[in-house]
C-alpha cells in the first residue's frame, strides 16, 4: 500500500505547480503510469480521494494514461511492445532492454 505515499507526492507536486502559477484551485491532474510500474490504480484513486479533501485539489480528478511495456533488443536493435514479461528477443538470441513501462509521472495539472 505505497499508493498513499504516491497520492501524497502527486498532491504535493500539484500544489507546488499551482502555487507557482498563482492558481487557487486544481481540477485535474494528469498522470503517466507505466504498465510495469508497481501501482494499483484503484488503491491510488482511493488514497487520492481521501487526501485531497479540504485542499485546493478538493474537487480534482485524476486523468491516468498508461504506457505499455516496450523494450529494445541489445543485439538486433529492434523495439517490441511486450504483452507478457518475456525479455528474450523474439527475432534473434538477444536480450530485450526495458525502454518504457516504468513511468510514474505527473504529466500536467489543470488549475485556475
Amino acid at each position, binding site marked *: *500500500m*505505497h499508493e498513499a*505515499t*504516491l497520492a501524497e*507526492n*502527486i498532491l504535493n*507536486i500539484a500544489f507546488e*505547480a*499551482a502555487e507557482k*502559477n498563482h*492558481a487557487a484551485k486544481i481540477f485535474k491532474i494528469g*498522470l*503517466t503510469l507505466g504498465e*510495469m*510500474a*508497481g*501501482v494499483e490504480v484503484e488503491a491510488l484513486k482511493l488514497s487520492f480521494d481521501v487526501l485531497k479533501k479540504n485542499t485546493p485539489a478538493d474537487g480534482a480528478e485524476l486523468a491516468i494514461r498508461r504506457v505499455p511495456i516496450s523494450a529494445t533488443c541489445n543485439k538486433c536493435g529492434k523495439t517490441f511492445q511486450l504483452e*507478457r*514479461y*518475456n*525479455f*528474450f528477443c523474439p527475432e534473434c538470441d538477444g*536480450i530485450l532492454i*526495458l525502454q518504457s513501462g516504468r513511468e*510514474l*509521472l*505527473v*504529466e*500536467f*495539472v*489543470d*488549475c*485556475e
Partner: protein
Amino acid sequence: MTLEIKLMKNILGANDEIAAQNRKMFSERGVVVMNLMGSPGSGKTTLLEKTLARLADKIKIAVIEGDLFTAKDAERIERAGVDVIQINTAGGCHLDAPMIQKACTSLNLDAIDLLIVENVGNLVCPAEFDIGENFKAVVLSITEGDDKPLKYPLIFKESAVTLLNKIDLLPFTNFDLKSAREDLTTLHPTIKIFETSCTKETGLDDWAAWLLGKAAR
C-alpha cells in the same frame, strides 16, 4: 481562467534525489549496499544470519533492519556480532531513501565493506523505492508458490539475484522448479538464481561466495 501546467515530474522524484545522494555517499566511502527483499516469512532474517556466519570474519558487515513495529529481527542479527540499526516504519510497507540516509548517520561507513538492508516483508512496494543500493536481492520461498515471479514482476525484474529458499520443502509442495526458473529468466534474462535451505544448510556457501565477490569490488 483555466491553466494547463505541463510538468512531466517524477512522482518519486523526492525519494530518488535522496537515493542518489545515498549512492554517492556509499560509493565515496567504499561501501557496497544490498537491498534484501521478500515476503513476510520467506526466510530473509534466517538467511541473513546464515550469510553473516559465513562472511563476518572475511569482511566488515553492517545491517539495517526494516520492520513494521518490532526489534525482533535486529536482536537476532545483533547476536551474530555485527552492527545493526533498527528502522521501525510504524506500519509503513517499505523503506525509503530518507530513512536509510538517517540510519546511516549512526553507522561508521568507513569501517564497513558491505551494508545489508533487510527491507519490510512485502513483494510489491519495496521494489518501487530506490534507497541508493548497489543491487537488490529477492528471497522467494518454495511454499509461496512458483507463480510469484510473474505475479510480482517488478521486484524480480529489479533484483540482480533471486534466492529460491526453503528448497528442502520442494518434495512436499507442487512448486514447479523448472517453471519458476523459466519465468524468472524470461522476465530477467541475466538474473542470478540460488537454491538455498537454511535448515539443511544447502546452497548457502555458493550464495555467500557470490555475495563476497560483489562486496569485494
